[in-house]
């Protein structure tokens, strides 16, 4: 399951009030075993963890970054005095000029999502929009017929949504979601992105590590795994033939 808005867009749409409620509308295809309340709560909690974790990391590093940038202000005073007191003033730039930009990328990211920090409660409800319901049911039935092929599923789903987009704009929303999913499949995992494991990254980290000071806060994609709705929960006889779970 994917939240159709990226976290920056979510921050942009958030009200500026001091305390507000974030209500997530859940659209699931019709199935004999619909998502129960506990599962909805689980979905909500995963989204909550992703959003809050991002905000937490930003605010934590911003506390340090703000201090480092402020540290530069005193340097600047020294530079200005040096500028007037000597003719050869250029050497003063040998002293920590990078402090002026410490954590500036995190500051910019935080500026965009800062309104989300004031959200006091999050709730998940059933969506009532008929167009969206219809679209998601159509996509689900298309998917269930696709399963035999098991190749390029996401690409086929995107093509299917593109075809129907003119009739129903809800298909466009679903298409964007699948594009997000395929983008996520191509990129490296969150953990791998944050670790310097390639020679180039190692080189950068070794020489710029002291200069950059603060780690980059990675932007999460708001995606949650949910129950496979085509599974029949009434009579369930799972396959025991795998040597291990295929997801491993």
């Amino acid at each position, binding site marked *: 399951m994917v939240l159709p808005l990226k976290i920056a867009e979510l921050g942009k749409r958030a009200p500026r009030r001091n305390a507000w409620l974030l209500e997530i509308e859940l659209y699931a295809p019709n199935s004999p*075993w619909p*998502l*129960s*309340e*506990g*599962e909805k*709560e*689980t979905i909500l*909690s995963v989204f*909550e*963890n992703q959003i*809050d*974790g991002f905000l*937490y*990391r930003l605010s*934590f590093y911003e*506390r*340090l970054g703000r*201090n*480092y940038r*402020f*540290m530069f202000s*005193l*340097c600047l*005073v*020294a*530079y200005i*005095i*040096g500028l007037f*007191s*000597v003719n*050869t*003033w250029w*050497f*003063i730039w040998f*002293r920590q000029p990078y402090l002026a930009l410490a954590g500036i990328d995190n500051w910019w990211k935080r500026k965009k999502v800062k309104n989300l920090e004031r959200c*006091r*409660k*999050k709730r998940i409800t059933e969506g009532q929009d008929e167009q969206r319901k219809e679209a998601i049911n159509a996509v689900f039935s298309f998917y269930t017929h696709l399963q035999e092929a098991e190749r390029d599923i996401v690409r086929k789903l995107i093509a299917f949504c593109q075809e129907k987009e003119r009739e129903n704009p809800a298909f466009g929303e679903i298409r964007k979601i699948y594009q997000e999913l395929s983008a996520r499949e191509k990129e490296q995992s969150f953990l791998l992105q944050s670790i310097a494991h390639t020679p180039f990254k190692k080189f950068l980290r070794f020489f710029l590590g002291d200069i950059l000071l603060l780690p980059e806060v990675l932007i999460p994609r708001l995606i949650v*795994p*949910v*129950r*496979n709705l085509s*599974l029949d*929960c009434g009579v*369930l006889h*799972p*396959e*025991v033939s*795998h*040597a291990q*779970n295929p*997801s491993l």
Partner: protein
Amino acid sequence: MPKIHLYKLFNKESYTLFSPHHPFFVEERMIRYRKIYQGEATEVILQVGRKEEVEYLLSLPQDFLTVTEESSSFLLTPKMRSQEVIEYCKRGILDTLYKEDALMINDEKHRQTFYHYGRFRIRGFYGILHRLFPIVFIMHGIPGFQPMTWDMIIGDPYFEDRTYLELLQHYQAIEMGLAELFENLTFRVVENTALRVLNDTVQEEEGFNKTARLCTSLGLGFLKDFYWPATQATEHSEWKRFLRPPVPLFPWSEPKDEKKHSL
């Protein structure tokens, strides 16, 4: 609203409560405690397979808990004066969640502050003042260096101390949040279809094997670690084919004369 999820899982002979969290990434828990420190109420959500499993909650004495029945869940609110309930919860969770979290938060605090602790300490023989003061005299003939030197002697330790204090305050808030975990509490019981399937499957033949494999497709992938070790230890699994009886180097016969053997 900070939440603690508890899952009622069938394990071996009876049910057990399981709270999924990452064993060594403590960030999620720190967020929870910081929110509690900021004054938000804790919500404990108990996920059960069937609602009938917890219907006895309705017959609890009303002077301790208020139980409200909603569409497919119960909402339990401890009464303001029922200190017994709070104490009961605290005692129940002290040896599991509380101690582990307190330890990990403390560890994380020391990890983060290690680099900044006394980095530019002012006092002492190895302090910044003693180390850098000579350059005030060395740079005497070069006036352009003077402001920079004073910045290094006074500015750097000041801002480094501020960084250190900010980190300490941050972790102090989290620790206080952990202490206030049960001050303001609501408890909710919700029904979970996927959990019901898991609890039913685990009681079948080779149940732990099947359940460990089912978790991901049921959207409860984080429960796999709960079932997987149990599978390895106790059940017949595909790994058992590596456990074969030893091949003897030469044939031997069991001692048939028991009397002789016992002597």
